[in-house]
């Protein structure tokens, strides 16, 4: 088991958002999480990544058999947890290559690998950015500043590729992409797939699942996973919406 979430209750301030969520992810698997707006999908992704303002009220999250909640966000990243943000931040004056270098250095250092030389780093960056079709000029610009919606999403995939995580949680990385970009992102995700890694993909559309075929599809409703199935569940949701799931869950 790579990730195991049991009876997870999470709140922000006085508001309960996750209300007893269970999820098990094994190495090599791809899980899709779908659900209406505000049901708690991003909250789940952010709790896994360690966003400070969320409070875990009850339940357990274990990653590679360890208590994930005991780790700082940066420790989780170094241990191989990655989240692609639904709304990535913009970093004024911090260039993308500089940001990536600092990230890669931090992660490699933790894994006992030596720091990449500028030349080695450039080679790695060139290879990865070509995969997601980000041109050389773009990595010289400030992180996400003035990037289009689609460019920001591709930049998230670039970061994933550079950091080479074990568990990737992608929060709507397929939203706002044109047809070509969707393919590029899907290819990026597929090339990341391996028997030792796992992907949790939050999405509103079954379309991406045509490219990246999931092992499991889950419906997150009002803070809980209320239904799980195979790829066909995504198609059913697309056709019928969430009301029937809600009715059955009630």
């Amino acid at each position, binding site marked *: 088991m790579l990730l195991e979430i049991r009876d997870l209750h999470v709140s922000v301030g006085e508001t309960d958002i996750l209300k007893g969520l269970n999820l098990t992810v094994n190495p090599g698997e791809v899980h899709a999480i779908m659900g209406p707006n505000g049901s708690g999908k991003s909250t789940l992704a952010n709790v896994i*990544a*360690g*966003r*400070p303002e969320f409070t875990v009220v009850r339940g357990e999250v274990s990653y590679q058999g360890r208590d994930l909640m005991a780790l*700082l*966000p*940066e420790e*989780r*990243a*170094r241990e191989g947890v*990655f*989240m692609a*943000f639904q709304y*990535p*931040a*913009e*970093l*004024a*004056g*911090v*260039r993308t290559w*500089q*940001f990536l270098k*600092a*990230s*890669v250095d*931090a*992660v490699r250092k*933790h894994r006992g690998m030596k720091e990449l030389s500028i030349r080695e780093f450039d080679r790695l960056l060139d290879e990865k950015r070509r995969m997601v079709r980000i041109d050389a000029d773009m990595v010289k610009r*400030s992180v996400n500043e003035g990037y289009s919606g689609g460019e920001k999403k591709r930049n998230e995939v670039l*970061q994933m590729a550079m*950091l080479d995580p074990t568990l990737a949680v992608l929060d709507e990385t397929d939203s706002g992409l044109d047809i070509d970009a969707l393919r590029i992102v899907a290819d990026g995700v597929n090339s990341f797939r391996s028997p030792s890694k796992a992907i949790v993909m939050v999405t509103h559309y079954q379309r991406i699942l045509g490219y990246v075929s999931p092992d499991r599809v889950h419906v997150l409703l009002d803070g809980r996973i209320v239904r799980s199935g195979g790829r066909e569940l995504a198609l059913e949701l697309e056709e019928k919406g969430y009301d029937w799931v809600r009715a059955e869950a009630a």
Partner: protein
Amino acid sequence: MTQTLTRYERYEADFHALDTAGRPQWLQDLRQTAWTRFLDLGFPTARRGNEKWKYTNAAPIARMEFGHDGRSRPNGLSAETTDAAIPRHDAWSQLVFVDGVFAEALSSRPESTDEVRVSSLEEAVLSNSETVESHLARHTPFEDDGFAALNTAFLRDGAFVHVAAGADVETPIHLVFLSTGNAAPTVSYPRALIVAENGSRATVIESYAGLNGGRYFSNSVSEMVIGEGAEVEHYRLQEESEAAFHVGSARVVLGEGGAYSSGAFSRGAALGRYDLSVLLDGPGSACRLSGLYVTSGTQHLDNNINIEHAKPYTTSRLNYKGILDGRSRAVFGGTVLVRKEAQKTDASQSDKNLVLSPYAEVDSKPALFIYADDVKCGHGATAGNIDEETVFYMRSRGMDVDTASRLLIHGFASETVDTVREPNLRAYLESQFLDTLPGRRLEF
């Protein structure tokens, strides 16, 4: 009154002791007028309802006794000592002043040509330069400014740059004003006059720095006359010693179609103030003013910028940034004045502050006065700490809080450094200035 006299006794004695034998009468008269004016004005106090000095208390300067010796020569100073304090590049022309007095041995100035003349003001005055006589102290009114009056009263030496019409001076001209900062507090009066005739181009860098840790007072005035269609790039580095007082002003006047760009970087002095006044006095003239101030400890830095749009189709762009730490304080003030006849003025101002400590404080209070009706004016000021959302984004990529904040603070400042066009200066700022930026002790 008696008290005032007592307070300025030392200045009075030094004023009368200043050796100005052989100087032309106009200069003697100018100095006398300025001295009389200084005695009337004194140092500014917030008490008088003085908007310009509302947030900066000049009393520590007024209270202290500073000695002045206009004859002091940079005995025993070598290029190695001075270079450590300032940016430098072999390609630059460099005039070095120690305690306000020209130090030939430390300078590397170009031969005077038909295109450009770079000399000490003293030389220019003694050779009866008409340009000097017609411009010196004509652009910096000291009627309402005690510091400018005091500087003018002690006017003896300084830098003089004269760029001939149509000349394109590619080599940056670096004016270095060093203070020795000896055991007994001293004051010096750096002065510069830069005249860029019609259609000329030049880059001028001013550096202010201290050589020793002692307490001293540097009271500077620079005047810049930019002719029709002329372009001047002006950089100013205030890197005075920690205990120093620095009060400087620059007054820039532009003719039709003239362009002035300024990059002001300040991180030195215990108490520092820079007044930059730009008079857009010709139609279509434009200025672009960037600045970065970095404060820590109990430092107090004040930038006061006054832009006057006097003619139509004039443009001003102001982008300042501050990084504050410790218990320091920064002030960003001044005015943009759009005269009635200055139609089609396009003015924008922005002052952004990164306040890293809960004990640091910034007063960002620029004011707009618009008397024309067909203008485009905008201004904004912000102050805030590093955005936690952004820090989380970076932590989720494996960086610790320290690395993340350092990158963000560096990034914030580098946006200003990036506007510097002179590559050797930009390199200095990137390697020296940015590297001493404070980090952040975040609590999560």
